[in-house]
């Protein structure tokens, strides 16, 4: 489909323009980053409107990338940047925007370096949007690595108490991933003597040694982004120390890039030499999932519980992406759409509770009894996250789990066990926070979420319920 306006470059450019505006915004003791916040929210909402227009232009039933754009970059070597979008990428971009928007609202009262946070968040959004629209290996590689820069700055500035050790781990793991993907990209380019479209990577005929090396490199580079053992530790350690919802959300979007990488690169018919590694990867995935779900259940930190919930589902989506069928891809997109919004909502509310608890120096047990508005929304998000029919996660997860059970029933049951453990952990926390017995007079000073935030969150909940009725309700 061709249009007069380059929509894809527009959605990458808008957050970047937002960065420029946010940089020039006045930031003193009076404004305290409010200007930068307003500019950032405006940029994200504008981008969401453009995305809505793109959704209207897309042909949902068509396969392959649409609204493609191409820019020649270098003559020698000949490299051009190609962009394209399909309904799967669109859903992920919208969900990431929505999650970041929720995070921005959650972090709007951040007093220190609020402007820097907004600037780097917008920059991250710009890069991740580029990553999801990249249609060739070079642009994919560039955006894959470029998003680490704002992330590095965000973790460095807002990474909590252990940010130095976390940063070093972040650097080691991601450097490893970057090097491997760089080699894979260069080898593929040299072999074909041209830039390769993403969906053609699996069609490149390599000799056996190179095939093992290239796919192994791609394996490791994407795995370095996903909390799969032994790569899980940097994200898990940062997730427990964070006190800023926007930083938490952005950090936990990183595994999505790994999962997306697998989905885009991974051949549906796995080359014979790789089938052995596939089994190993699946085993590692399942073990990691169980491991993180079990630790999430005993960990008292709610941030860790959200992290374990996100990780378990990321791994399930990854396992589903390995299934030898293209038809589940759309279901992964629908499920991920709600999943990211739910995780964002949970994080913002848990952060609000944590702040109240810290400022009043009280225990968190029963804190929700003193904040009825937050309690209602939080209950909704927890029930949606455990798989109740309140979002698109319900039906689409049914399809994904059915396919996993069909592929390997033992693996399917282990996946279901992990889901149950992580759901039990979330429910356990919900009822601890709502426990009326703990609701003593010391909770009287607790502030509920504002009416404005309540209405925004109610709208988000309503949009999630609409995704349950029709996952693409927003497509006219």
């Amino acid at each position, binding site marked *: 489909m061709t249009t007069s306006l380059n929509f894809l470059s527009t959605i990458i450019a808008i957050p970047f323009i937002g960065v420029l505006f946010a940089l020039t915004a006045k930031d003193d003791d009076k404004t305290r980053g409010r200007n930068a916040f307003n500019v950032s929210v405006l940029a994200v909402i504008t981008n969401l409107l453009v995305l809505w227009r793109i959704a209207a232009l897309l042909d949902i039933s068509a396969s392959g990338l649409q609204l493609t754009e191409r820019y020649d970059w270098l003559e020698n070597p000949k490299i051009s940047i190609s962009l394209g979008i399909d309904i799967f990428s669109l859903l992920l971009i919208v969900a990431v925007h929505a999650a970041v928007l929720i995070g921005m609202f959650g972090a709007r009262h951040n007093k220190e370096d609020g402007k820097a946070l907004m600037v780097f968040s917008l920059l991250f959004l710009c890069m991740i949007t580029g990553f999801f629209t990249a249609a060739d290996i070079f642009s994919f590689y560039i955006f894959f690595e470029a998003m680490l820069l704002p992330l590095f700055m965000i973790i460095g500035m807002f990474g909590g108490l252990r940010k130095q*050790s976390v940063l*070093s*781990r972040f650097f*080691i793991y991601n450097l490893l991933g970057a090097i491997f993907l760089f080699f894979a990209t260069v080898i593929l380019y040299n072999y074909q003597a041209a830039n390769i479209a993403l969906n053609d990577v699996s069609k490149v005929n390599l000799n056996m040694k190179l095939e093992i090396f290239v796919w192994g490199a791609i394996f490791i580079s994407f795995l370095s982004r996903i909390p799969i*053992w*032994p790569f899980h*530790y940097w994200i*898990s350690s940062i997730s427990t120390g964070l006190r800023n919802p926007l930083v938490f959300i952005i950090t936990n979007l990183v595994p999505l890039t790994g999962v997306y990488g697998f989905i885009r690169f991974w051949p549906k018919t796995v080359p014979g030499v790789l089938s052995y590694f596939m089994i190993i990867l699946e085993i590692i995935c399942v073990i990691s999932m169980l*491991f993180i779900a*079990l*630790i*999430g*259940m*005993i*960990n008292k930190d709610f941030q860790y519980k959200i992290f374990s919930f996100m990780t378990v589902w990321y791994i399930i989506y990854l396992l589903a992406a390995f299934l030898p069928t293209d*038809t*589940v891809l*759309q*279901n992964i997109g629908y499920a991920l759409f709600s999943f990211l919004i739910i995780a964002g909502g949970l994080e913002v509310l848990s952060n609000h509770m944590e702040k109240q608890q810290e400022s009043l120096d009280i225990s968190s047990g029963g804190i929700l009894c003193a904040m009825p508005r937050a309690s209602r929304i939080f209950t909704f998000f927890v*029930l949606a996250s*455990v*798989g*109740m*029919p*309140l979002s698109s996660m*319900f*039906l689409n997860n*049914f*399809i994904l*789990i*059915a*396919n996993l*059970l*069909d592929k390997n*029933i033992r693996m*399917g*049951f282990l996946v*279901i066990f992990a*889901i*149950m*453990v992580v*759901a*039990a952990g979330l*429910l*356990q926390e919900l*009822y601890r926070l*709502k*426990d*009326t*017995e703990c609701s003593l007079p010391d909770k009287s000073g607790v502030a509920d979420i504002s009416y404005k935030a309540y209405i925004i969150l109610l709208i988000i909940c309503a949009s999630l319920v609409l995704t349950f*009725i*029709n996952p693409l309700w927003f497509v006219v």
Partner: protein
Amino acid sequence: MIAKLFFTLLAVGLAAEVLAKVRFEKILSFLLLCFLALWGVWIFEAESLGLVDKFSFHWIDASLMLVNINLNTTPDICRLVFALLVISTLSVFYNTFYKAETEKLRVNGLLTLNLAMLVSIICSQNFMQLLTAVCIMDVICLLMINDIESKRRYAFYNLLADMGLFTLFALIWKQTGSIDLSVLEKYHRPGQYPELTSGLLLLCVFIKSGIVLCHGGFLSLASLTFNRILAISYCSAPIVGILLLVKTYPLLENIRYMKEIFLSFGGATLLWGCVGSIVLDNIKDKALYFNQMIYAFLLGALAFGAKDVDALLPLVLFLGFVLNAVWMLTAISTSNELFISNMGGFIRPLKLLFVSIMLWSLIFVEVLSLRATMLNGVWTYGFAAILLVALAHISFQIFLGKSNADERVLAFLKNPPLLNLLPLWIICGIIIWQIGKPSMQIWIIWVAFVAFCFAGPLRTLGKVYDSENLQEADWLHDFYQTVLVAPIKILGRVLWLLIDFLIIERTIVSSLTSGSNLLVRVLDRMHTGSAFSNAGYVALGLGLFAAIIYAKVYN
């Protein structure tokens, strides 16, 4: 007709939830009651006329799955919907007029939505509609529970049940390629898992209907107000369990020993319910154990065929509901005294309630004796005998024998308002009108029951009310905590300590950090140290160079 009912229930239920906080909630609740009663009349009319009407629409039209929502009208569906509509209307009635209920319109709105989902379950022809309605009902039921511990238990148990249902339907869908409930009949081919899926289905049903070993969620409802116990017991999860069994019965027919499983679990639950209702002091607990007996009977009855249970279900549900309502009215009449040990000798001030129980027992005996021929005589009469023994014992303790009531209770003791009793009597009257006059045999059994009641042969069992350990015992919960939950938690802690902390944090990350620090220190000293260090650095480079040359030349 049914489709219209479904959509209007949804609309009215949602409207009631939105208006839940307004001032005139009692009036609105009353209007809601009238609305349900009106629908009851229409559905009864549709059933009498044998109305047949087809209605279905595409809900999801994806490449992988086509989900239709079926809301067809047939006399069979109308009969079951009518029964549930009447029970829901009565629940709304008691919610509206029960003083202890503080959120009348909200609970009534939830009950209306719940009824819409029950209609959807009854009409479902595919398991996506069934699964969705069951899960939505769980959320609604969770919102009706207003006690945190009950909520917690209900949520955990039902999460397990819903995941079981989710898994079994996912498995069947992928293996048969269809979501139609009719495929269950043929689900016993090589490579399929009929035993596994049946096991999951039974687990789910047992949890929902409070069958023994899975009854933790159901019995924890005792801390709710009586009207909510009534509403949940007869309009929500437990009835869903039985409806699920009726809907998926063809799957179970392929399994050997299914009859034995139904009867053994049903029998064990019946005995458990009987013992619980006799031993426990709290009247709410007793009410729940009676409900457990009712569902145990239905489960056992399913061993003899789903069709007969389909016909029996409305009557048994009505009877169970009425008995539960009588316990609720007893508590209201005794100024909310919940402990049986503080009652006794109330026959004179509460004669209307006593008469109600006697009337109920007569109808109960008649209904069961009529149905015994249809089902299995031993099972039906066994159930009747066990339930009547428990009922006689409790009736003796409340209405006869020596009074243990305190002055407050005695001072305010009076019959419940006629308005509260009237619906129960009307139901009893309608049942008698439907089934006809009791035969001589029924009268003899009933007289024996009354005599048993007055004699109170089990009166010595009243001593168990003093045992605090017994009254507060929660053996099954403790057992599951020890056998299931604690090991999972210990495993999680061990994994965290061993792998995250010891291996990754203290071994890999620490050694990487120490290694890189050492390397940096060595290189730093070589760079900035003495001439000796510089010479060493140069020698290392030369050595490396020589090694490369050597490898090139001799390879």
